């Protein structure tokens, strides 16, 4: 399982989760390897489209405030 960027291994998945502060029970990284490889493969495919002439649309820039969530 690999993308063009990095080979996705259980160790990579555990490090990514750890960097995000997510607790992974033992063995879960093995379950996530094919999923992570798949989504990152798709993300790499999007690099085929030249988007450098475009800004993100201004209308979409607002995240919700916490008081709207909790």
């Amino acid at each position, binding site marked *: 399982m690999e993308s063009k960027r990095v080979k996705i291994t259980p160790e990579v998945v555990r490090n990514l989760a750890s960097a995000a*502060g*997510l607790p992974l029970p033992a063995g879960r990284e093995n379950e996530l390897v094919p999923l992570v490889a798949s989504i990152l493969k798709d993300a790499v495919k*999007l690099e085929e489209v030249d988007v450098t002439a475009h800004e993100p*649309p201004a209308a979409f820039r607002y995240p919700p405030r916490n008081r709207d969530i909790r």
Partner: protein
Amino acid sequence: MTADELCFLSIRELGAKYRAREASPAEAVRIIFDRIDRFEKPLNSWISVRREEALTEARAAEKELRAGQDRGPLHGVPVSVKDNMDTAGLQTTCASRILRNRVPSRDATVVRRLRHAGAVLLGKTNLLEFAYGIVHPDYGQCNNPWDPSRTAGGSSSGAASSVAAGMGYAALGTDTGGSIRIPASYCGIVGYKPTYGLVSRAGVFPLSWSLDHVGPLTRTVEDTATVLQEIAGSDPDDPTAVNGPIPDPRKVIEGTLRGARVGVIKELMGDDLRPGVRAAFERALRVFRTGGTTVWEVSVPSILYSDQALLPVIGPEATAVHESWLRTRPEDYAPMTRAQLELGAMYAATDYVRAQRFRSKLMAECETALEQVEVLIAPTVAWVAPKEDPAVAGQEGVIEARRTAPFNLTGMPAITVPCGTAEDELPIGLQIAGRWLEDERVLQVAYAFERAAEWTVSVPRGVRS
């Protein structure tokens, strides 16, 4: 008129009966709860119902109407909202264990507007957990009134199932990659995703804030316009809500196929379409042409890259919303919901930025296509209702949303209307999308198609008496 026939009237027809004193809101509420009692077990459309409260509100509406205090077309009309929309004093679970006991102190803006218009809230409808594509086992799958062994579709599953089954005249749903239009297509009803920001999302639990939309599911296009008129408009509680033109239902029903110009997006006519869906779509094209519409083939060259652009947006945004619970209560999510939220933490920030930039490129390409035509059309989904909902982050989930997600990425208005049946005689939808804030034109074309095609569905076979 039988009780079942009353359940399947349009909102306008029901309102006429109220005002002619041939039916009453309390009567409508009672027969709908009878229907819920008959069909809830196989369908599982509801998370909570408000039997006593709805009946009390219906009696009050009846009293007001008889006293001449008419609040408009939704006065006394029984409706529902998806259980990710806040309702003061009534639990709002998002079909999750995380929020099982949460009771909001105030209504979402759209709920407040429905109440202000006099609508009677029947209850809260089932959904995929946090609208993120997976059933939580505590709540179970919501099933399809056309074949209860199949899903109603997600994530606004209960909204689509209940309206198709005659358990309410309208429902509100949310749509982040197709979650209104996909279940509406599977259940053979109308589902509308307005222009981004035309309807406030304040008090609606976010999935992915830059893609989320709120909109109605109904049995007719006119009913959709009627509901939209009451819930749309700017809102100080939602900074993305716009003060755009709100479609006028009286103008919507002036829509005609004659002289309209529609464009078939050629990139969305690929091999993933099931033969029955393709055949039904071709029949729809004949309806347009026979009605005097010019049908063009148009190209949106990058639209198939939407498959790769949606998840790098939903993933990080959803995970940002759930970050705290994901660290402290991960075991409370359904396994695949948890996995999808974990995946959201594993994108590079540059993937997110690239996907956001892609959205502008896609919008520009759609605008170019719309220089030639007024609206863009495609089958809503490549297939009929499956047995279960596919995961958003899987290949089938990507294909399921292939024709709906582009219009979440662009924010353009898009509707699905019934388009006959395909494999296993199950309903499918035709999607019609238009320019930003030209919601009225989209609804006009949809209305004209609905009238010409005469495929507004009858009572689904799974809920016939």
